[in-house]
């Protein structure tokens, strides 16, 4: 953690901490509240869009097109969160946040947007739904935390829904990348071959395969980290109720 701790943090609970914590300042707090409210609203728009499109069409197929624009807008907007960490108004690591946001942006633009043939795949719906539910809960969690009025339900949801949503999202992402592979190989998308005057080459097809492989070490680590956080955050409350 590079920045001074906020009144509330993303992962650690407030309870039991007697240290004086420097907040991000009233202006920064106001900005962050607005940011998180806007993001919550944005992902709600996507959620509503998905439901309406499903009801209108009567099938799961091709729902991506109905929410393509807001998805791109709000997912890309999350890049601001890297800035928040860098500036210090949010006490998370720039590297960790950067990594998380970039992987989302990568999937949105460099895979789903770039490879048109993949957009009608059902796997896209799988990760879009996972992301939507996760983000609605996450951004409302931050909003309430900043206002120091966090309903237990939101906290519980944040540390519980991921158990299903995280694997669901990862499955959708992997299947989508896998579906994109043949088209990337055929068209040589984003690839550079020798000879060229900068003596450089890049094979996007191989890069995508390596990306998929990287999920193997990364996903379990992040998943178990969240499980441990869950025990820490939700476990405390159980102890207090027992004592009372």
């Amino acid at each position: 953690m590079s920045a001074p701790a906020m009144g509330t943090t993303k992962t650690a609970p407030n309870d039991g901490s007697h240290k004086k914590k420097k907040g991000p300042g009233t202006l920064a707090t106001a900005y962050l509240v607005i940011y998180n409210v806007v993001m919550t609203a944005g992902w709600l728009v996507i959620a509503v869009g998905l439901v309406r499109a499903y009801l209108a069409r009567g099938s799961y197929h091709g729902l991506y097109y109905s929410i393509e624009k807001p998805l791109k807008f709000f997912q890309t907007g999350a890049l601001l969160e890297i800035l928040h960490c860098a500036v210090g108004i949010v006490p998370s690591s720039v590297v960790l946040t950067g990594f998380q946001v970039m992987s989302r942006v990568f999937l949105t633009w460099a895979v789903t947007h770039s490879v048109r043939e993949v957009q009608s795949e059902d796997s896209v719906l799988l990760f879009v739904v996972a992301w939507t539910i996760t983000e609605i809960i996450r951004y409302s969690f931050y909003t309430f935390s900043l206002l120091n009025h966090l309903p237990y339900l939101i906290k519980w949801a944040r540390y519980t829904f991921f158990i299903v949503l995280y694997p669901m999202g990862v499955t959708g992402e992997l299947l989508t990348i896998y579906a994109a592979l043949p088209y990337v190989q055929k068209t040589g998308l984003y690839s550079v071959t020798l000879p060229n005057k900068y003596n450089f080459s890049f094979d996007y097809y191989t890069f995508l395969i390596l990306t998929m492989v990287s999920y193997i070490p990364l996903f379990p680590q992040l998943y178990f980290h969240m499980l441990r956080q869950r025990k820490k955050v939700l476990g405390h409350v159980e102890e207090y109720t027992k004592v009372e």
Partner: protein
Amino acid sequence: RLKKERERETDRERQREGRNMDTLALEKAVVFFEVEILDAKTKDKLCFLDKVRPTSTKLCAACYPQWYPARQSIRLDPKGKSLKDEDVLQHLPVGTTATFYFRDLGAQISWVTVFLTEYAGPLLIYLMFYFRVPFIYPPKYDFTTSKHWVVHLACMCHSFHYVKRLLETLFVHRFSHGTMPLRNIFKNCTYYWGFAAWMAYYINHPLYTPPTYGEQQVKMALIIFLFCQIGNFSIHIALRNLRPPGSKTRKIPYPTKNPFTWIFLLVSCPNYTYELGSWLGFTLMTQCLPVAFFTLVGFIQMTVWAKAKHRSYLKEFRDYPPLRSPILPFVL
């Protein structure tokens, strides 16, 4: 005569007695310390030593032999800074019963070992690509050589650079710390060996394209490279001469008679400045994007190190020259 002899004998006896008296007095003057050592995290009592002479710390080797001194971190406060090897019990702000906190630094490896391993790799790996050892390029190119003379020049420069580093590690550098954590060798070798392979692959590729501005560009690049190699070496020698052999003293480095050291007027860590220059030269010489990446990443890392060194110079020396920047004159 007998009288003189007896006088001499009593003199000698008195001298001996005097010396004994002195040592007795010293023994009395020595205050023995009692030392207890606690684990910094769990606060468990690890060992208790009484009658400790007021000499250096690094005491725990006796109690727990698997924690050899290099991996011991002993401190006055569990969250504080580690004490140094040279610190003496007498001069520490402790009473006669001292409590220290112990932290295991993990398996350690010597700096020299790490440097030799991480530099030998690129030297050999690059040569494997240069000689087009099988299984790298299509089989028809096995053991062939490039038709471009800049490729031969690049191999000589790259090899020279790493041979220089190896020799400096063995004969020039005087290290402050003996060891570093073992996991560093894996991290460092991945970095150096990985980048070396990536660069060498393209430079020695059968489809390599020589620089756009041909001989002019390569000659300019070579001049920059050599200038910076000499500069870097000069700085290493100057830094070595600041420190007498076997000591760990720290002094402000100043320009010497060697013009390559005059850059000390403007920069705290000119060894990094020259290193950047060398790799910029190599990038220009090979006109290879992976080399540019390597230069950039190295520059970022060296800037981090230079800023830290600069800060520690400022902290340690009140009279540190204010004109100096960490790595780039006036800029960074």
